Structures are given as C-alpha cells and as structure tokens.
C-alpha cells in the first residue's frame, strides 16, 4: 500500500461544458457595444444619415412621433387589423382543425385542400380580396385571417395527434362518452400544441398587416413606413420599424403569459 500511495494522483476532471449557462451581463454589453459602434460610425460621418440614421436620430424621431401621438394612431390601426384578422382566422382555423383532428372523414376531406392552399403566400390574394371587399378594412382583415387560418388548422390537428393514445384508451376503458373524452382528454392534451401554433400565427399576422398596409392604406405602421421611405425620412422609417419590433415582443410576451397560465399543470 505505501508504495502505491507514492504513485497515486487525483482523477483528472474531464466533465463540464456543453450546457447552456446564461451569462447575465453579456447581452447588455453586446447591445451597448453595437449601439455605440453604430452611433460612432454615424457621428464621425462614416455612414451618411440618409443611408442609415444614428440610434440617437431614431430615438429623437420616436420621441417626436410619440409626442405628437402620430405613431400611436398608426399603431392603433395596425393593432385593430391584427386583432380582427387573427381572431377570425384563429376561430375558423380551430373549428376546422379540431374537426379534422377528431374525425377521420373530415381529415380525409380537408387535407388535400389544406395542402394545396397552405403554401400560397396569402398576400398574393390581396388584389382579389380588394376586388371582393373593396380597398377598405375588410380586405386587409381577410388577408390576415386567411394567413392565420391554415397554420392554425395544421397546428390544431397535429396537436390532436400528439395527445397520447393511451390516455384516450384509458378514458374508453372507464366508459367515458366520446364527448367527455374530447372535452376532458383530447382538448386539454392538445392545448400545448394549439398555443405554440398561436405564436406562429401571430407572427404571420404581423407580417401580413405590414404588407397589406403597404399595398393600400393611409393609416397603420406599414403605410407609415412606406411613406417615410418615399420621403427619404429614414429616421422616421426606422422609428416605425422599432415600433414593429416592440409590438412583436409585446405579442410574444402576452402569449407567453397566456401559455404559463393555461398550462400551469406542467
């Protein structure tokens, strides 16, 4: 034993790493660094303000626009369109998607239509929708609703498929009715999938509202950004883009809260 202990050494550590550990300060440092660099490039005239205005100029533009309330009025128009279009598309999408998730015949009927229509970029239908509904609000709301509808259908029936079959067999073994199985097992089980579908459909609604407003609108963030571009007011243009970013963050924050509340059993 004594001669062994002479040659003994600790086991070298070779574990660790390959695991994401958030570093609290790093994101702030990165953010500030990029902004400072950007500001410096603008201030020293390396970048022309018309090409890319400085962060400071964008901040000032944002401040003026919110003081006059103009930006909020545009934001209000966009939000209204998003909410109406998203609500209609989601309601119809859930109805169709859940029916397809529950009944095989409905799935067989619906699948070819969904597969054929889902890949169409819905903004391509706006001219047709304008012919149907006029240039006003209904055509914009319709294009958002259409864009939201198909992904919602797909996420609803795939969410139904993802409910473990053993839970359904369990319900059957205890003599639960089909209705009870749907309301107590299938729908709650499909909830996580449906809610993550909401994130996708909300981002689609945001894209489509801007696109639709750029094609034919006086109000709304999309229209505002387009007209700022036409007037070469790039600071105003980017102020609008910043508002869109904030709007997107806000929507995903709200959906996150809804998710943690509805899925609090997880």
């Amino acid at each position: 034993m004594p001669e062994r202990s002479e040659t003994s050494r600790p086991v070298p550590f070779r574990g660790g790493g390959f695991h994401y550990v958030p570093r609290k300060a790093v994101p702030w440092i990165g953010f500030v660094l990029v902004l400072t660099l950007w500001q410096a490039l603008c201030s020293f005239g390396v970048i022309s303000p018309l090409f890319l205005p400085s962060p400071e100029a964008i901040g000032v533009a944002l401040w003026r626009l919110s003081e006059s309330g103009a930006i909020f009025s545009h934001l209000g128009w966009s939000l209204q369109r998003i909410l109406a279009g998203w609500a209609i598309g989601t309601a119809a999408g859930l109805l169709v998607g859940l029916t397809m998730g529950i009944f095989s015949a409905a799935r067989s009927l619906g699948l070819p239509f969904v597969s054929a229509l889902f890949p169409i970029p819905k903004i391509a239908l706006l001219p047709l929708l304008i012919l149907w509904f006029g240039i006003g609000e209904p055509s914009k709301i319709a294009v958002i609703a259409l864009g939201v509808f198909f992904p919602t259908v797909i996420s609803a029936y795939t969410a139904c498929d993802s409910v473990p079959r053993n839970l359904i067999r369990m319900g059957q073994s205890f003599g639960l009715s089909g209705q009870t199985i749907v309301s107590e097992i299938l729908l709650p089980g499909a909830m996580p999938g449906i809610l993550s579908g909401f994130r996708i459909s909300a981002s689609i609604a945001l894209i489509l509202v801007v696109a639709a407003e750029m094609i034919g609108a006086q109000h709304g963030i999309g229209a505002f950004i387009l007209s700022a571009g036409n007037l070469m007011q790039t600071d105003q243009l980017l102020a609008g883009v910043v508002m869109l970013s904030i709007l997107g963050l806000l929507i995903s924050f709200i959906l996150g809260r809804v998710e943690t509340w509805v899925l609090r059993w997880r």
Partner: protein
Amino acid sequence: MEVRIEGVSHRYGGLQALDGISLTVREGETLALIGPSGCGKSTLLGIVGGLLQPSTGKVLLSGKPPADCLNPLTYVFQDFALLPWRTVAENIGLSLMPHGLPANKRQERIAAILVLTGLGEFAAAYPRQLSGGMRQRVGLARALVVRPAVLLLDEPLSALDAQTRELLMEEMLAIWAQQRSTRLYVTHNLDEALRLADRIAVLSRRPGRLREIVEIGVPLSERSKPDAAPALAALHARLWTLIRSEAAEADREVVNA
C-alpha cells in the same frame, strides 16, 4: 364475478397474436397471465376489457357484482395513464364521471379510496409532483373507486423500481383482502406472479396459446415467509423452464416493421 374467456383468437393483419385461448378467472382469485414478450398477453387483457375486438371467440362475465359497483370491469395501466392537467383527486374522479353521482357521494367515494390507497395527503397534487409509485397508487385508486367486480392489471409494476414494486405488492395484497374482487394480472415478472397470484396461466409466444395453468398451493398471506421459500423456488424453476427458450427467442428477434 367470474370471467370466462372462450376460444379467443386475434389477428393483427397477417400476424396471429392469440390462438384459441380458453380459460376462466374464478370469482375472487388473482390469475396471473405470464409469457415472453410478444405472446399477446396485453392483447388478451385488451379483449377482456372491451378495448379490442377478438377475431373469434368471446368473453363472458357471470355472477353478481358487489352492491356498490358502478363499473364491473376496470383497468390499471403499466404507464399509469394519468391526466397531467388533473390533480390526484380529479384523476380518481374521472372514472366516476359517466355514472352521474351526486357531488357528495362522489366526494365520499374519492375520500374513502384516497385513504385505502394511502394517498390522503396527495389529493391536491399534480401527477408530475409524484413518484412513480404514487402515480400508480393513483391509477389503482381510479380503478377501485367505482368498486369493480373485475380488476384488469396490465403490468402495473413494470415501470417502477424494485423497492417501490415491493411496497406496492404488499399494499395491493392488503387492498385485495379488504375489497373483494376478481383480478386478471398481466406480467412478465415471475416473482410478481408468484407473490400475488392464486394461479398462473402461461402463454406461449406468437401465436399466443395457453400452455399451462399452475396452481400455487401456498396461501397469499404466507408467500413472503421463509417456510414458503422452497415451494415457491421450485415453482419458479418449473415456470422458468417453460418460458426460457421462448424468452430467448423473443430476445433475439429482429423487428422488421
């Protein structure tokens, strides 16, 4: 109640899973169904429970169910099959749903079964908060709360560790001594069968046929006593010889699917 399985065969497409099984689970006994994997024991349980339709043959229930029986035939699942969005009490209440009991009767039954299965302090917990053993106690409570005449257990301890399995075996024996029922217990574990069953039915592999029914002479209450050990060890050896070659075959099988 008594369960009579008469000439049950089952095919999945071209695969013959069960071939002409006839056997009777006697009133008040535990019949263990053992066999190598792929012998169709879970299929047979599914047929008895009305979850699968046999290709030929039938299953008959006879006798009088207990007075307060709501559902003559209930299931305990290997993977527990609990609803993660329902608390323990709500999961147990699920099997009462189709029977339209008034709220106070429902609460009474749930409270009584929580005590019987030792879940009293976990009524408001969610499944994710519980150990595997506790989850299976919920599965057991959910099956027992309707006071079934026949309890179908599909490898109920297979997902649990050895110590938890031991504890649950003791508890199941205690529950069965208190609540009269007929049990059909599917397992691949010989020790479980020798501990819990009155008789053991051995199935052969693909197609599942009934090879032998072995009566365990030792009363349930004596099974864990040292005196019973030689008799049980002899039975164990005999059953293992019956199953061994087919278990090895199942082990070597390459699945083409």
